């Protein structure tokens, strides 16, 4: 039976060198180039692979962000998603992982009302805020099973999926009832680049925007007002102290000096 899949994708700055705005003490991302969070490419690719194996499967990409984030949904469509929905509007902005996951869960519920969603896929974490929790929180909001750090979807049908989760010391195998939320890691696949056909589809796609009200969220449940944590300020970590060059007349002397220095610092 065909599945109905949602993939959550975030538009993030393409650079890691984000300056702090001296006026606000917060990261200043205005004017930077944005692209799909690199980890979310794996989630999109996994959805597309499931679709290839289960014809008739539909994939909807969902992003929460400013109006300009329609671009990340077009990128998702160019990579093989069928449709995109943007969650936007003033009330949804400035949220934390709590209110962002709440809005994504509400969107999945709204999509499920039209056609039941079997699976919601997520990246491991984002390049910018890097909480690595939104997929798990969405599962909690929906009362679904949720498994993060999944390196393989071993099997999936409309009722259940068998998942391999990467642990620190090995691999857990779990069976989850669907619907479920799954967070992916890089090892799960090798994302393909957008196809020409995909790029054409992306260009033509009509992307609806849903606001907090469309999602049935009260103003105090969304965005900054619905957040539970606030980034008060941000700063560059102190630079590392200048290092010491270790050089002897011969490589053996260099090795000797290095080991002596490490022993002196009680590092070995």
């Amino acid at each position, binding site marked *: 039976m065909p599945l109905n899949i949602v993939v959550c994708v975030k538009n993030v700055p393409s650079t890691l060198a984000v300056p702090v705005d001296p006026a606000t003490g917060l990261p200043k991302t205005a004017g930077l180039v944005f692209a799909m969070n690199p980890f979310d490419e794996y989630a999109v690719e996994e959805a597309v692979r499931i679709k290839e194996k289960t014809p008739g499967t539909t994939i909807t990409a969902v992003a929460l962000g400013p109006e300009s984030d329609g671009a990340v949904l077009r990128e998702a469509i160019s990579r093989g998603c069928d449709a995109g929905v943007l969650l936007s509007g003033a009330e949804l902005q400035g949220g934390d992982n709590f209110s962002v996951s709440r809005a994504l869960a509400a969107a999945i519920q709204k999509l499920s009302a039209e056609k039941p969603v079997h699976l919601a896929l997520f990246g491991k974490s984002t390049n910018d805020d890097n909480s690595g929790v939104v997929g798990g929180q969405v599962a909690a909001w929906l009362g679904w099973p949720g498994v993060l750090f999944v390196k393989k979807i071993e099997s999936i049908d409309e009722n259940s999926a068998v998942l391999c989760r990467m642990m620190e*010391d090995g691999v*857990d195998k779990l069976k989850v009832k669907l619907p479920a939320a799954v967070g992916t890691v890089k090892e799960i696949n090798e994302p393909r680049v957008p196809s020409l056909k995909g790029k054409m589809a992306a260009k033509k796609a009509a992307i609806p925007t849903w606001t907090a009200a469309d999602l049935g969220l009260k103003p105090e449940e969304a965005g900054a007002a619905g957040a*539970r944590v606030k980034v008060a300020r941000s700063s560059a970590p102190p630079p590392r102290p200048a290092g010491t060059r270790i050089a002897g007349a011969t490589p053996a002397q260099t090795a000797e000096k290095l080991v002596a220095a490490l022993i002196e610092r009680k590092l*070995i």
Partner: protein
Amino acid sequence: MSQQKILVIALLQRGVVSPAVYELLTAGRSLANVLKQPLAAYLPGGTAEQAKELVERGADRVLWSGHAALKDFNDELHAQAVLAAAAQEQPSWVLIPGSVAGRSLACRVAVKLGAGLATDINEIDPASGAVKRSHYSGNLQATMEFKSPVRVVTVQAMVFPQAPAQAGRAGEVTELAYAPAAAGTEFISFQAEEAGEIDLGGAERIVSGGRGVGGADGFKAIRDLAHALGAAVAASRAAVDSGWIPYRHQVGLTGRTVRPKLYVACGISGQVQHLAGMSSAANIVAINTDPECPMMQQATYLVVGDMFELLPLIVAEIKKRRGQPVAA
């Protein structure tokens, strides 16, 4: 601000209390001292013996549930157990290890408690209740303030020292009844990685190889040094993508984040995506033929040279030193 109770979640890994829990007990102790509160811990799936050890390591009160359903980590069942403990303890702070299981658990617990969640924190200010964590891949450090009465945090490994055991320390140990509810997640099996491998996350010393290692065979030199140092083996993405070493060894933006006392980077240029995973290492040794490579700017000790020449010499020197009494 009164009565801010603190609850440490003592997760097990394959039946053993994870060392990260001892780090949480240190973090929790300093909160407890400032807030003038007892330090509580909850041990899902453990034993009374393990609960007593947590008391010796600084917990004033330990709740434990020894149910077999909590033996292996199950997101739903563990969350249910932790929520029951939280309902009893009413904590303002819930401290969880920054592991795969810990982060997974924190998601559910935070949503159900209506609590703010900050992951991988590396600093706590007990007086203000603010925490710090890195964002933008370690390029910036954010100060986070909570708006919710309950704060859920996962703590980055290796930031706080492990709380030492004090034999005979007194505290309360109570079993908390637990009956698993229906769950949509079923644990099937666990497949361990190579035995005897030191996990990167908790490693005090790491030896890491990059493209300069040149091939899968080249990692022998890396492993030999790691062995001599009692260190874990890591790699850059270039080495992993070349198929020289499995992905679980990758450090960086798309790999693991590590915080060892010593990180020896061999044949790694130090691109920002690699630094994202290791720039908070206390000491970095850069071994590279290129004196201008970015890793040299990060390094505590800069060693310019061919790693294939140097690594065996370093191993030999360590062995030599071990053979003789260390001079004062």
